[in-house]
Structures are given as C-alpha cells and as structure tokens.
C-alpha cells in the first residue's frame, strides 16, 4: 500500500479518525475500571479506619460526617460497637508538609485519647520525612495514648511532648498539625452529638 499524501483533507480525516477511535477505547476502559478504582479507594479507607480504631461493628464510612475546622473540612468516621460510640477516625490533613499536603487518619477514643494513626498520603522526602509512617509509634515520638487536650502536641523543640523525626522537623511539625486538627475535629464532633 502506498503512503497517503499529506493533503489537507487526508491529514484532517486521519487525525480526526484516530482521536475518535482513541476516545472510544478510553471510554470503554474507563467504564471497565471505574468500579475497581472506587473499590480500591474504599478498601484503603476502610483499612485505615480499622487500623486506627479497632473493634467496631458498624460501617463508619456510611456514618461519615464532615466537620469544619480552622483550615477546611475534615471527614469524621464514627466507630460504634453495638450502637455505642467507641471512638472516631478522623481523616485529617495539613498543608504545612515539607512538600505540601499530608493526609493522616487519626483514631481517637471517646475521651479524645489517640489510639493509633495511619498516614494516607504524603510527598515528604524519602528516608527523612517519610519515616512518619512508623516514627510516631516508637519511643519518645509515640503519640499513641496522648490526648490533644492534656498533652502538648508539638515537637519537643517547640516545647511540646513529642520528639520530632531526626532531620525532619518540618515534616514532624506538619504531622502534628494534622493530629491537632483531628483533636479539634473530635471536640466539635462530640459537641455536635451532645446537642442532638
């Protein structure tokens, strides 16, 4: 077959043809992968919730409420056992990370004491700030069992109760900023349930 000449008509027809075909293919792939993508996202959220507030028997995602804080809205997932609130998971965030947004899921019991946390999303430096996945569960950096009201949730350099990650103070401050935001969300959530 001889190569098509580069006439105006040929070029327009070919390019339009290809883009139309590409659009059709992508449309069908998008439809195919829509549900699995949604499922994967949900599974991740579910796992994070059960990691940070274990032992619930309701579906916290269904009972999700949104709480306004000083800097934007955070999602609160109430964890209940037999209809009684045993704790909440707060999907908190901060924009103060070394490379911007950090998202953490923080689990708090009914007194506001931190049960556990899970880092959902971050862009911190690998090997430094990225240690936040484990750091705040070990030694003097451990935030579990601390309470945003009773403890000073800032790094020890700023006079707080939590040791910062070695060589990643900015990331640590950001992380604790997100934790404090979850504490604030906890307060307003408890207030709003009492009003009901």
């Amino acid at each position, binding site marked *: *077959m*001889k*190569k*098509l*000449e*580069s*006439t105006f008509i*040929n*070029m327009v027809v*070919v*390019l339009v043809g*290809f*883009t139309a075909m*590409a659009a059709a*293919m*992508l449309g069908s*792939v*998008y439809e195919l*992968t829509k549900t*699995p*993508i949604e499922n*994967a*996202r949900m599974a*991740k959220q579910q796992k994070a919730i059960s990691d940070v507030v274990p032992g619930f028997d309701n579906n916290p995602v269904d009972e999700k409420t949104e709480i306004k804080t000083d800097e934007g809205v955070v999602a609160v997932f109430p964890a209940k056992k037999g209809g009684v609130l045993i704790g909440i998971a707060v999907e908190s965030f901060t924009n103060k990370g070394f490379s911007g947004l950090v998202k953490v899921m923080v689990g708090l019991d009914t007194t506001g004491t931190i049960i556990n946390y899970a880092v959902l*999303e971050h862009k911190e*430096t*690998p*090997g*430094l700030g990225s240690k936040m996945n484990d750091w705040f569960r070990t030694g003097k950096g451990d935030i579990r069992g601390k309470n945003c009201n009773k403890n000073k949730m800032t790094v020890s350099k700023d006079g707080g109760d939590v040791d910062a990650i070695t060589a990643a103070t900015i990331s640590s401050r950001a992380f604790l900023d997100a934790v404090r935001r979850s504490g604030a969300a906890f307060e307003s959530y408890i207030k709003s349930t009492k009003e009901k």
Partner: protein
Amino acid sequence: MAQLSNKQNFLKGFIKENPTLVLLLGMCPTLGVTSSAINGLGMGLATTFVLALSNVAISLIKNIVPDNVRIPAYIVVIATFVTIVELSMQAYTPGLYNSLGIFIPLIVVNCIVLGRAESFAAKNSVFPSLLDGLGMGLGFTMSLTVLGALRELLGSGKAFGITLYPENYGSLIFVLAPGAFIVLGFLIALVNHLTKSA
C-alpha cells in the same frame, strides 16, 4: 542498515541498544522512580506494555498516516495506551500506582516510546516491531530494576522490601536524587566496559 533477524531485534534492547544505559533515553522516569526495586520493575513493565502495543499499532497504521501529521497521530496512539495502563494500575495495583504517581502519565512523553515508533515501527512490519518494543521495554525494565535494587540496598538496606541490614547503616543519599545519578553513572560505565571488551 542491514536487516536484523527477529532474535536480534528482540535481544538488542537488553545490552547492545539498551534504552537507558546505552541510548540514554527516558532519563526522567529512570532517575525519578527507581528509589526501590519494585518501583523500577513496575515502571519498566508499564512502559514495556505501552512500547510493545504502540509499536504494533504504529507499524499497522504507518501507511495510512500522512507524513506531516505522523507525530501527532503517534502521540495520540501512545497516549491512549498510557491512559489504559494508568486506569488499570489505579484499579488493580493501587499501591504501586500511588508510589509511581505522576510518572505513569509521563510515559506519554518518554522519548523511548516515540523514539522507537519513529525509528523502528514506522519503517518495519508488525512482528519485528512487536519484538523491538518488547525487547526495548524489557531492557528498560531490567536497567530500572537493577538501578532500583542497588539504590534500595545501599540506601535503606532492603531488597524488594525485605530488610537485609538495619536501615540506619544505609546511606540516605542513594534514596535521594543524587544517588540515582551516581548509581546510573556506575551502571553505564559497567555496560560500556562490557560492550567494549566483548
């Protein structure tokens, strides 16, 4: 250029014309994602898939694409395959998708893909193009995996996520960008040495 046999078309991507270590194409993903072996492997396989399919598609359409619009037409084909990969990875390997991040959509502008389309698929028939794409892709995968494994081992004491020695003894620089350049430089030197003495 003498006609290469099918076997040569397939094998040349591994050492002789290895896209990263000899042709030095596609440096952006090479340096960017290889902080661990598994990232390098995932990126390599995603690129292989795109490369093989786009090579086949382009060798099929090479005669109906007028010369003046061939680059936009090829890019549309490549972008389509990349988006398919992106959506499938998001759906079935969300963990890997998250760690590769922006580099998946960037396969579109990876010069290896367009380079092979232009220099090989546009001049050859379907089967050799498929072999060329697969060989180049697997060669790319190989060098990315080796690079990732070395950086992971030197930087954090792990291989494919399994700890071999305590992380504290690792040298952080290898996980960060400078380490990528250093390890890549040594790999290129090694390949040069091997191909020259052979």
